[in-house]
């Protein structure tokens, strides 16, 4: 079956430092990867949508300078949170879309804690 692995599951970083998270699709080809942040209130914010061989589309309030994303092939993507501060806390979710274009499979998430 389709699986999406994310790591690390949890990171505690000092304010102003950076955190890199990785996303691996297993068992299917991920035509696109969407990075979300889930707030403590459980709401989802789309950060960016990445399609292999296409430009990465960032949503309003999120920039490449702050959340650089790498998506080199159909099974792997990574995102870094640069200069993390308290407002960057949350559960970062990688959602990989299969070739049907509809189904979005999520990883377990990478939780960022900033101290």
């Amino acid at each position: 079956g389709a699986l999406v692995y994310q790591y690390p599951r949890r990171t505690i970083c000092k304010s102003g430092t950076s955190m890199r998270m990785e996303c691996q699709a297993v068992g299917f080809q991920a035509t696109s990867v969407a990075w979300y942040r889930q707030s403590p209130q459980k709401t989802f914010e789309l950060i960016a949508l990445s399609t292999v061989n296409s430009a990465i589309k960032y949503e309003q309030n999120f920039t490449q300078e702050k959340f650089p994303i790498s998506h080199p092939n159909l099974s792997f993507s990574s995102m870094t949170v640069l200069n993390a501060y308290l407002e960057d806390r949350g559960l970062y979710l990688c959602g990989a879309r299969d070739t049907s274009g509809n189904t979005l499979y999520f990883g377990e998430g990478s939780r960022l804690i900033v101290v």
Partner: protein
Amino acid sequence: QQQVRQSPQSLTVWEGETAILNCSYEDSTFNYFPWYQQFPGEGPALLISIRSVSDKKEDGRFTIFFNKREKKLSLHITDSQPGDSATYFCAALSANYGNEKITFGAGTKLTIKP
């Protein structure tokens, strides 16, 4: 502007009863509706989904009922079990965005009492 609304915010039912989770939307271009189940500390897992051309989708104890005219759908969980206790998210995709952008509701926290 909240495109996908879920109600109730939280729901408690007894084991064995049917839990009904509601979802409504505004954008008439939404054409695909996945439901996700999320346990504390984990990512959301795809539970069941329906396309707008259907009015019902069933998978075991989970059934989606879809009313396109009223822009409403509901998730029914029959014979609910304590292990079903989780937060359920209704989501929608729009053909206008090439089905790229998924819009989530705020979730319904379901508690099943044994």
